[in-house]
């Protein structure tokens, strides 16, 4: 269920270089005037100056306008996100079809999950598609960013043209890829035929199905990542490059000794975002192959080759009405994502730490 992180702060993160911590830090404009002692909370810029007002109305009630201002978000958040997420944890230990009685079954759903070959197939599919898309995506994005950064002409045009895929409807693009890679009538096979090569049954082979989905994700997000890298490249002071050039370093040496290390925080950000969104692929196979598991045993395409974990989750929840099992799937999957994000984080940080 790829969300579209057209823009979003890094989820978490040690900050360095161009990145500043996403939050948790005090507002930069907070004034630490003499009137600060003794009262922890007060309007930021009113305190100290408007002395006589202070202490007039103490207590939490004094802050009602601020609480009222943030209430809509937290109200909706609590009702439609926080409570449902916790309720999903509860559901993972029950058996429920959405209509009848909720029945406590303990760890049975997780035991079933552990022995469910389709679940593990979906995990494998998800991981393979993720690797097939993320690795070329981030690599090509870096190359594209370096190229755009090396020139002064047409950069505005390149940025817009490369960014457009990321704001395009995923449903539309999934239909487009399914049409272009279609076994019988697709453009790709027509081109292969014109080159006197044999046509490839893209949409029925276990590996090519994954390849097509990965190609779609790569098409959609490479330009976005390139734009992000480009912003990072432009923040590297040009004196560094000049100094390296004067020391006799070639372009390759400069790339690996200056560009990559200074870009590390941004690479980290893109790796985390790509991990979180890349593992959540759902719409691509759902639109390409249809998903209704109650009528179609091959959800996710022939041999279930495109059955990602979230598509399997959706099948169990909304086609089979097996809410308890679906809840177990989605929480197990979330823990897997969390582990992979942490592993990736460590990997990128470690690999690029200079000795």
């Amino acid at each position, binding site marked *: 269920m790829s969300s*579209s992180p*057209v*823009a*979003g702060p890094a989820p978490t993160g040690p900050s360095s270089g161009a990145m500043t911590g996403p*939050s948790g830090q005090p*507002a930069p*404009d907070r004034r630490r005037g003499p009137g600060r002692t003794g009262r922890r*909370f007060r*309007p*930021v*810029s*009113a305190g100290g*100056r408007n002395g006589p007002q202070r202490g007039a109305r103490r207590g939490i009630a004094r*802050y009602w306008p*601020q*609480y009222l*201002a*943030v209430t*809509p978000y*937290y109200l909706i*958040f609590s*009702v*439609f*996100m926080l*409570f*449902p997420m916790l309720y999903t944890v509860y*559901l993972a230990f029950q058996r429920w079809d959405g209509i009848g009685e909720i029945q406590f079954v303990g760890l049975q759903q997780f035991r079933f999950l552990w022995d469910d070959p389709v679940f593990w197939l979906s995990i494998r599919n998800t991981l393979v598609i993720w690797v097939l898309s993320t690795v070329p995506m981030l690599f090509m994005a870096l190359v594209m960013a370096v*190229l755009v950064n*090396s*020139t002064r002409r047409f950069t505005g045009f*390149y*940025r*817009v043209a490369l*960014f*457009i*895929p990321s*704001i*395009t*409807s995923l*449903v*539309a693009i999934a*239909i487009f890829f*399914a049409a*272009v890679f279609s076994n019988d009538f697709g453009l790709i096979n*027509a081109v292969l035929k*014109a080159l006197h090569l044999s046509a490839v049954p893209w949409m029925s082979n276990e590996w090519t199905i994954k390849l097509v989905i990965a190609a779609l994700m790569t*098409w959609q997000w490479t*330009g976005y990542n390139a*734009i992000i890298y480009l*912003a*990072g490249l432009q923040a590297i002071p040009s004196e560094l490059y000049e100094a390296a050039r004067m020391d006799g370093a070639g372009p390759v040496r400069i790339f690996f000794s200056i560009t990559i290390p200074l870009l590390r925080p*941004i690479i980290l*950000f893109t790796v985390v975002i790509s991990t979180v969104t890349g593992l*959540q692929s759902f*719409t691509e196979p*759902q639109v390409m192959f249809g998903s209704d598991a109650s009528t179609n045993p091959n959800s996710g395409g022939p041999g279930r080759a495109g059955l990602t974990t979230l598509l399997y989750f959706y099948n169990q929840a*909304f086609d089979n009405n097996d809410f308890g099992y679906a809840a177990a799937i989605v*929480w197990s999957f*979330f823990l897997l994502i*969390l582990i992979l994000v942490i592993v990736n984080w460590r990997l990128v940080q470690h690999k690029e730490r200079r000795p």
Partner: protein
Amino acid sequence: MNSQNRRRLRGLSVHVVLMICVVVSVFPFYWIIVMATNTSQDIYSFPPKLWFGDNLLTNIENLFAKMDFFGSLLNTMIVAVGTTLLVLFFDSLAGFAFAKYDFPAKRFLFGLLLAMYILPTQLAIIPQYEIMVQLGWLGTLKALIVPAAANAFGIFWMRQYTSTGVPDELLDAARIEGAGFFRQYWHVVLPCVRPALAFLGIYTFIAAWNDYVLPLVMLVNPDELTLQVALAQLYAGHSTDYSMVMAGVLLAVIPLVLVFTFFARGFIADATKGALR
């Protein structure tokens, strides 16, 4: 070859490679138009037609017979506009409170926003569905607009912009004249944060327009769909009539992309700012 020539050649090759990337990026749009303007037979024939045809109107006619295009369009507009207005209002207000005021539990509340980035929405979707059943909202557009009105990114974004983009002097002046929180918001903050609202508005509108998962789950009535769900169903039901399906894709997607290119330069600059924060 002297060094100046070599440099020129290298510059040229950079543009050649980048132009290839651009062609790959925009090729789908070109090919969608080619498919939507030809007949399905043209697309199936070998070699396929590579240029625009004149069958677009017939394809659109077929499309309107198979799909309630304008109904879906209207639903999508209502959802996108409704979500965007709510997000702009809620998030600028909350952003102001977070940026310019200290209040008990502020840190904790702000930390909760962060958590929203790591928690995938699917963790909540089953109970969400049940809540909508209980509220009687299932199948209605409310079920899409209300949950989407809680936008953590928007609060981040507005807080960041408000803390630097709204001068404290102006707020102090307003306070001296006796303006309370909400009058400061209306008369001082809103005029100052317009650029940030423009970005957040475009961003929210596009996300709502393109959203697929929530409408897929919540819109159970086949006559009341958004464009994305209607398109996916059209494709599932008529997957071989490419020219008709592509006419739908063309009408549902290309206008948004075209409109986007007008705002693109400023939007992309803001998007990277948001990402690198």
